[in-house]
């Protein structure tokens, strides 16, 4: 079931809609935002130069820095009396990024979230338990409005108070859970304490999870702990909030809503657009936003997209789960690696805990990667051979999965550097010499 028939439209029809909306957006930002007008004029670009979707690569990028530099409302293209809602990021590293919505923007947001709920199998018959935080964070209200749009019953539980949330889920008979994967797992762990057959008290059939990077291992864990289908939602407030894409029952790839957003994958170093299927930084241009239409917003998230059709009948592009952040990428002897990929390999090696540190160094002209893994009592053995096997297993898993040669070194627990209690995961000594 799809919410809107455009989700399974012919690709040429989708692209036609995209081009016309892209032209409107370019026109709009050029005439209304001095920031973009300056950028266009600098490179001698006129809105009428955009005549095909490929021309999008001529447009300048927008970054989080640009949003911060125009804090709070500097990039809004409508007067404040047309702005009906403001959301903001947490801003842990300086000024927060602030985003605004007109009434029309809110309608788009409700629409895409309705598609997400429908993709997860929800209808007006369902009771949605919303465990995302309500407030400036787009999670809580984004899910709230989408559930209302499809006519489901929404329980606005917000975050925290695990025991109370579990009671509400049981007593109200929630069928759909919306929450972060980590909180969902935490709730399952608390629920389990009442006995191994705790699932009989709940009526959940599906969950819509997002706002955190998630490995397939974690997805499986959440899905099994609650005995439900796992649907991953992608979103970021700069574009709209949750609702940029979600996976259907057929695969783990996320259908993205191309009639409202234009998707590109670029090489984060050169800015060049990458061909379909290759991994790189995700760049999104909202095509219908009124209050804050950004051009080619660099999400910093690493993923790939494919046009391959899906069994469910939807024709829009599908995106892989985010595999890392562009700023974390290491290049080891020409191979791109994200720390999250290394973490994934380590997590899947039997007996090894996740206390590790990645150290990249130059030896002569060659890159050298060392991975220090703390020896927990669990992997401690009184046989050198057994311990050497653990080391070898990690090394060969890294080579087979990521094509990198790393030297794994077993180290004493708690010997790895920590900063304010948080482990320092990556030390790139090559950068110090630049």
């Amino acid at each position, binding site marked *: 079931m799809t919410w809107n028939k455009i989700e399974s439209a012919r690709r040429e029809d989708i692209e036609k809609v995209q081009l016309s909306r892209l032209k409107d957006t370019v026109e709009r930002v050029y005439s209304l935002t001095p920031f973009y007008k300056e950028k266009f004029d600098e490179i001698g670009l006129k809105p009428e130069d955009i005549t095909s979707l490929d021309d999008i690569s001529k447009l300048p990028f927008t970054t989080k820095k640009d949003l911060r530099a125009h804090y709070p409302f500097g990039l809004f293209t409508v007067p404040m009396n047309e702005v009906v809602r403001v959301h903001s990021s947490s801003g842990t590293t300086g000024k927060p990024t602030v985003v605004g919505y007109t009434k029309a923007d809110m309608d788009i947001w409700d629409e895409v979230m309705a598609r997400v709920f429908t993709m997860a199998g929800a209808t007006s018959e369902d009771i949605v338990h919303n465990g995302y935080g309500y407030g400036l964070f787009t999670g809580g209200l984004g899910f709230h409005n989408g559930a209302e749009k499809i006519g489901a019953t929404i329980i606005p539980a917000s975050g925290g108070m695990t025991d109370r949330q579990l009671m509400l889920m049981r007593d109200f008979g929630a069928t759909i859970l919306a929450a972060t994967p980590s909180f969902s797992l935490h709730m399952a762990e608390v629920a389990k304490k009442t006995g191994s057959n705790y699932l009989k008290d709940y009526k959940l059939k599906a969950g819509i999870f997002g706002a955190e990077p998630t490995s397939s291992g974690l997805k499986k864990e959440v899905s099994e702990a609650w005995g439900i289908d796992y649907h991953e939602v992608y979103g970021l407030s700069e574009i709209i909030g949750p609702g940029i894409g979600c996976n259907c029952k057929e695969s783990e790839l996320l259908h993205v809503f191309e009639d409202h957003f234009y998707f590109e994958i670029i090489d984060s170093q050169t800015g060049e657009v990458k061909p379909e299927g290759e991994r790189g930084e995700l760049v999104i241009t909202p095509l219908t936003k009124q209050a804050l239409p950004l051009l080619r917003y660099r999400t910093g998230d690493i993923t790939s997209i494919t046009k391959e059709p899906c069994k469910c009948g939807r024709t829009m592009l599908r995106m892989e789960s985010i595999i890392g952040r562009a700023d974390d990428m290491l290049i080891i002897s020409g191979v791109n690696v994200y720390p999250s990929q290394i973490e994934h390999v380590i997590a899947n090696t039997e007996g090894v805990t996740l206390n590790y540190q990645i150290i990249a160094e130059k030896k002569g002209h060659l890159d050298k990667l060392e991975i220090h893994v703390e020896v927990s*009592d669990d992997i*401690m053995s*009184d046989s050198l051979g057994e*311990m*050497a096997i653990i080391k070898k297993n990690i090394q060969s898993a890294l080579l087979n999965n990521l094509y990198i040669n790393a030297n794994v070194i077993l*180290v*004493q*627990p708690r010997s790895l550097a920590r900063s304010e209690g948080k482990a320092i995961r990556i030390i790139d000594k090559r950068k110090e010499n630049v």
Partner: protein
Amino acid sequence: MYRIKQLSIFVENKTGQITDVTTILSQNNLSIKSINLIDSNDFGILRVIVDDEQKAKKVLDNAGISLKISDVFAVAIDDHIGSFNEVVTLLSSKNINIEYTYTISNNHNGAFIFKVNPNNFNQVIDILQKNNINILKEI
């Protein structure tokens, strides 16, 4: 009875690593009865027998040092040629695999320390006793 508790302590291949362990043991009045280091290129395992292994585990845990306690047994060294050979021949004739062995000195002639698969431990003690091998209750 006959189970001697041996600590296998992880040590990195760096200067000062053994000192770290032995300093903690001596500061806590723990007496080292035997010490044996095996090493590879990257790291080593220090096999230590002390007078109070639980206390040693506690103080080493607190210092963040990984270790494992294993059961080993000790056979008194009899002062004649072939006493070691007697034990290993006996065990191999019963298809018992010895994981490792080393010698230690004590107040007498010293002892051979043996590590076998924990599942075979009682069986091994039984075989040795039936063959009048002098297994030590303590070293």
